[in-house]
């Protein structure tokens, strides 16, 4: 198998292996729609971010990285669990969580997925089995626990986590891999290797950029792919999810991709000069949507007017999501202390009687410790 790394991808020039032959129209449309929906959504949020200062939380946009979440969205079951990190909008939408709940959350409204208490980088939607958090690598380790629960209960559910390559620099990533491997957990890790952790390149932080090799040493099945090819992403994800679902054990998918926008916020951060201009240009010329459209045009499928219809439909959904957010109330009088801790124990109340104080005899000696 040829090795795929960031360097190898650069060397082989513009990507030319996207294959759509033999795929159903439904799949092509689904992949296209998923990518464009995420792109339009992010672009619209970027435009609106500063206009009336209505989005007051850090947002990590994901322009250029649409292929993987779009493919994933076509493969997940409602009862699968999906965890994500700070750059989570693609995963939120992939789990079929409503766009309105996302926008309202960014706007800090009561109708947000978390009533405006979490914001973009920590948004969750328990009703959709979607969970994210901004502390790197925490969420991927939670996914291991959910996978454990699925296996314990004998369910054929899968737990997945999407994260960036920097998340693998935390020790807990390797703890989780090792555990998932030894227990053969139904766990799928999706690593979007976009080369950077904020403004730091991967090679400054890691001994090599082929993470998959290191992961293989843990006995975990790996897939290494060019990450802007939605068809390849779809096929690899399908295989990995099926493998995990059938009890084969955990999988790790590494998708080489690139974030076009700034690390955080709507404005460019390229004034920092942390990445070479030709590198940005290279990845712009490998835009996943443009690559896909080119193939579609070449094959004469999903023509311009059909695509325009899809875009119009998406734009309407985006408009409605903004309206929903703007028309929703801001939270007020939330009892934060009460919300922080559940004082109810319905299960305990049903099953256990109360007992107040025992009858402790104060004359007893304490235990004397023995060798460990």
């Amino acid at each position, binding site marked *: 198998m040829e090795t795929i790394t960031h360097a190898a991808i650069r060397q082989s020039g513009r990507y030319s292996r996207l294959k759509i032959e033999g795929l159903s129209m439904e799949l092509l449309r689904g992949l296209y729609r998923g990518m464009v929906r995420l792109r339009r959504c992010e672009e619209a949020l970027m435009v609106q971010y500063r206009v009336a200062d209505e989005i007051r939380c850090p947002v990590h946009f994901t322009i250029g990285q649409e292929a993987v979440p779009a493919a994933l969205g076509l493969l997940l079951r409602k009862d699968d*669990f999906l965890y994500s990190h700070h750059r989570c909008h693609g995963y939120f939408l992939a789990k079929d969580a409503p766009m309105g709940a996302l926008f309202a959350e960014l706007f800090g409204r009561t109708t947000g997925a*978390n009533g405006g*208490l*979490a914001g973009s980088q*920590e948004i*969750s939607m*328990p*009703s959709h089995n979607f*969970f994210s*958090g901004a*502390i790197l690598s*925490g969420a991927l*380790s*939670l996914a*291991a*626990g*959910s*996978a*454990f*629960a699925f296996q*314990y*209960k004998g369910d054929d559910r899968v*737990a997945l986590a999407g994260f960036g390559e920097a998340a693998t620099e935390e*020790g*807990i990533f390797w*703890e*989780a891999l*090792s*555990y998932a491997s030894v227990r053969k957990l139904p766990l799928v890790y999706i690593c979007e290797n976009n080369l950077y952790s904020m403004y730091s390149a991967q090679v400054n932080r890691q001994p090599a950029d082929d993470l998959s090799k290191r992961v293989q040493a843990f006995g975990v099945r790996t897939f290494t792919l060019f990450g802007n090819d939605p068809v390849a992403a779809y096929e690899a994800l399908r295989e990995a999810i099926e493998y995990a679902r059938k009890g084969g054990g955990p999988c790790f998918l590494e998708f080489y991709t690139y974030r076009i926008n700034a690390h955080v916020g709507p404005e460019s951060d390229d004034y920092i000069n942390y990445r070479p201009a030709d590198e940005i240009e290279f990845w712009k010329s490998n835009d996943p949507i443009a690559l896909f459209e080119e193939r579609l045009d070449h094959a004469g499928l999903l023509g311009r007017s059909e695509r325009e219809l899809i875009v119009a439909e998406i734009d309407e959904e985006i408009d409605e999501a903004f309206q929903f957010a703007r028309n929703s109330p801001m939270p007020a009088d939330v009892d*934060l*202390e009460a*919300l*922080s*801790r*559940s004082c*109810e*124990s*319905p*299960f*305990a109340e049903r*099953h*256990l*009687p*109360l*007992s*107040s*104080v*025992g*009858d*402790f*005899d*104060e004359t*007893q*000696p*304490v*235990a*004397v*410790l*023995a*060798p460990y």
Partner: protein
Amino acid sequence: MRTLTYAQAVNEALAQALELSEDVVVLGQLVDTSGVFGTTKGLVEKFGKKRVQDFPVSENLMTSAGMGAALAGMRPVLVHHRLDFMVYAMDPIVNWLSLWRLKSNGQSRLPVTIRTVVGKGWGQGPQHSKSLHGWFAHLPGVNVAVPATAHDAKGLLLESIFGETPTIILENRSLFSMEEVVPENPYRIPFGQAAIRRRGQHVTVAALGIMVPIALRVAKQLAEESIEVEVLDLRTVSPLDRDTVLKSVAKTKRLVVADPAWRSVSVAAEVIAFVSEKLGRDLASNPTRVCFPDSHTPMSAPLEASFYPDDAAMLSAIRSVL
């Protein structure tokens, strides 16, 4: 009436919890083989390796995994042989478990129980003896219990396992052989209810964990001098039963707080703070603390013996407020 040791009471609570619900699973290093000082002894024989599972030496992951399992409907009990080991799990505790209920706008429930043993004596040294209940109590969103008796160890553990809030239970190793009458049926003790272990009108001793037996012994001794000490066992430090403490101090007007932890920025400090806020002007004397020095635990036996407050330290603290 049947008595059990503290360790047996914990063991019985775990067995009954495993019996009560398939969602309960006990995870921890050696829970299937070492018996964790008797607290998990025999469980694997009865419930099998699926319900009582050894876990790799990955305390950080075990805690996150427990949370991920709880999100998927389970009620995991995570066991640590020493609290010092679970400091590796501060990220899942602080950044995930404690804030998740708020962050999910009350939608998620996280019945994760963390049982941790605190070492004391026989040269445990600074890395096997820490009691960080004050740290954990500082966090919103987690329950923290420090049971002093076998009866409470069982009831608080069952309450935690079948509650909906992440809970940390600190069990001091030196209490494990202490016996008490323990009801055979499973039962619960709610968090946030202190126990009045001895009634008295002259001085209140609010004690926690291993300080409770000391306070009771000293109270008995002082009763011979007609000094009646009211001994409160706080039992849980988050939530903290402020009402019971305030009622007692309103009556005695004198307060000693006995907290088995470092003195500064401690649960003891919090108790004195809230009593002062409500009753500061009514106090007949300055309140005082019986705590560990602001130092890590020394290994060498004589130093270790003087590190931990004993009956004499308790006695002199009580006399100082009379």
